[in-house]
């Protein structure tokens, strides 16, 4: 069959018109998706956290999009992702790029150092920023619209310190922490809380990024005759290696760690080295609300393994649901209205606990202390701020 000049031009014109008006779904008026930005560390040393964040977001979005009653005006959630990698410059570059993607809110990095690096850019845009970064300073940077969906280091460090001193009867505690914003911020909080008990740490050791041999740091704590060791570390892999090296260097004192110590990955690598350790955690599987129980069940079904406890998947899952609830309540996705709705959050039941927003944007005000045995964490006590 030959195509004449007239038919050829007609077909071309039809094609051009179709190209302009877009695919049939748009012609039929399919609802415009609600675009949410996500900046996890997809590559680099914290890629594991990035994977956990992406899994948490995917689960929440799949659940919400599958339930018309949870989707505001029938508009499905669409996640726009940029890689924050492992350094601050890349995180800021990712933020600048994603801000051009017409997003309604941003699920900001869980790494506090990146949140703090991004703050100057965040101040110039009025949209909701939801972070899992726990450094106290994060919500004191003057970023309007920054909400923290996990317990701040002030709460975690206070609970860890009180537990070490009051429950483990520590009189000569040592601190070992990462030298990043998370680690130093947490260690500062522990020192401040120890002062309330009139105790100074006998050693306060830090290690730089990518350190793998912790001999000097551990021996320093051991030589100082510490009777308890408080760990404040973000990276689960580092935590596991430290635990193994603590055991191999013969330091046998009670250990109380920040949430990464209870991370599933840390437990799987550390194995018996983690037995007997205590950890301050966002939530403990089996010891929390029906929302948390449902999250663990659905996560395990979708990904074939249990979620980590807190730092990666849980907070960000809560974040997507908080946004969905805000949009449904206010019947719009207007960022300014969303900020007001989020600020008014009170007694919202999430995976990590009950969310109530304070004046600084902190949503979570409780933490659990757990004990590790056979790579499982069991609840010892819950501590509220």
């Amino acid at each position, binding site marked *: 069959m030959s195509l004449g000049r007239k038919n050829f031009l007609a077909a071309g014109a039809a094609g051009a018109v179709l190209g302009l008006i877009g695919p049939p779904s748009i012609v039929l008026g399919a609802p415009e998706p609600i675009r949410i930005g996500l900046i996890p560390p997809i*590559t*680099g*040393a914290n*890629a*594991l956290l*990035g*994977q956990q964040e992406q899994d948490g977001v995917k689960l929440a979005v799949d659940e919400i999009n599958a339930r018309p009653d949870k989707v505001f005006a029938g508009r499905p959630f669409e996640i726009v992702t940029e890689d924050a990698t492992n350094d601050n410059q890349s995180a800021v570059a990712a933020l600048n790029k994603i801000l051009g993607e017409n997003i309604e809110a941003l699920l900001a990095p869980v790494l506090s150092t990146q949140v703090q690096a991004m703050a100057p850019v965040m101040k110039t845009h009025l949209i909701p920023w939801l972070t899992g970064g726990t450094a106290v300073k994060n919500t004191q940077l003057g970023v309007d619209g920054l909400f923290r969906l996990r317990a701040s280091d002030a709460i975690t460090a206070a609970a860890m310190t009180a537990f070490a001193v009051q429950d483990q009867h520590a009189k000569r505690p040592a601190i070992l922490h990462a*030298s990043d914003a998370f680690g130093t911020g947490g260690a500062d909080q522990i020192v401040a809380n120890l002062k309330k008990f009139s105790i100074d740490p006998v050693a306060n*050791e*830090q*290690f*730089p990024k*990518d*350190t*793998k*041999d912790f*001999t*000097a*740091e551990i*021996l*320093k704590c*051991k*030589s100082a005759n510490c009777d308890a060791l408080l760990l404040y570390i973000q990276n*689960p*892999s580092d935590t*596991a*290696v430290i635990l*193994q*090296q603590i*055991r*191999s*260097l*013969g330091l046998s004192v009670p250990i109380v760690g920040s949430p990464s110590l209870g991370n599933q*990955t840390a437990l*799987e*690598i550390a*194995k018996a080295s983690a037995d007997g350790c205590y950890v301050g955690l966002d939530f403990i599987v089996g010891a929390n609300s029906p929302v948390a129980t449902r999250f663990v069940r659905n996560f395990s079904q979708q990904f074939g393994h249990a979620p980590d406890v807190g730092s990666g998947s849980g907070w960000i899952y809560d974040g997507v649901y908080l946004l969905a609830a805000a949009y449904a309540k206010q019947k719009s996705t207007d960022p300014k209205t969303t900020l007001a709705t989020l600020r008014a959050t009170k007694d919202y039941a999430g995976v990590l606990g009950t969310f109530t927003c304070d004046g600084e944007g902190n949503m979570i005000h409780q933490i659990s202390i757990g004990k590790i045995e056979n790579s499982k964490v069991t609840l010892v006590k819950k501590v509220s701020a």
Partner: protein
Amino acid sequence: MHFDSIANLQLLINGFAIGSIYALVALGFVLIYNAVGVVNFAQGDFVMLPSYVAISFLAPSVAVFGVQMHWQLPPLAVYLLVIVLMTGFALLFNRIAYYPLRDRGWMPVVISTIGVSIFLRNFAQLTWGSQPLSFPSPFTADTIDFGGLHVRPQDLLIIAVTATLIMFQYVLFEKTSLGKQMQATAQDRTTARLLGIRVGRIVAFTFVYSVLLGTISGLLVAPVFTVTKEMGGLIALKAFAASIVGGFGNIPGAIIGGLTIGVVETFGGFYISSAYTDAIAFVILIAVLLVRPQGLFGERVAEKA
């Protein structure tokens, strides 16, 4: 800070262990530099890649491209398999990253090695995921304890294997025809070619040997450090500093430089501040360059006016 002899001995052993790894990786740098005159920035990834390959065959369950593998082969068979696979990889690396660029100066080759490094890290993430992997230890006991000293058998293995490799290398270079051909190629490729040495093959062999040094380093540190795609990065950086401290291009210098940095940074972390553990390696580097720019064992090179 009190001076505890047990703690000092502990620091010395652990410092020697990590220093041995720096020395092995530094040797890899030096051998390739001597053979082709470029710094191979993928040397650290030659520590990481074989660790991932080994754990895929060793561990009871490892996800490879998202598929759970349950090979769990005998360790000795796995180590031999990894050495064979990494030999093939080294020949491929030589053929793809170096050979086509060999006549275009040093810069394209250096950029090529950086490209290989980035590729390998991303390849590792896509293949094995971002989850750090626990590498099974060949020893049943975590530590050997005597008189308050806690020594990891793995650390003793690292020191012993490094010492054996250094002796092997001495015999190879000083007592065998192949070693002498490698030395001749390193000193002057044109003259070596005129003497009938098959320079291309010798260079390829040097790449294989260098990759295998990284492979052995990876298999030695993986049980202590866990396997991550970043595991070779800092080791390579310290090893690079070690090779400069020893005198870039000098083989005994790389070994002494590696051991020096390992021991000094471990003691420095203990007696000065653990916050500066990494900085100490580079303070040593700067100090050596100021006092002796050619490195501890390097020969002074003067340019004619």
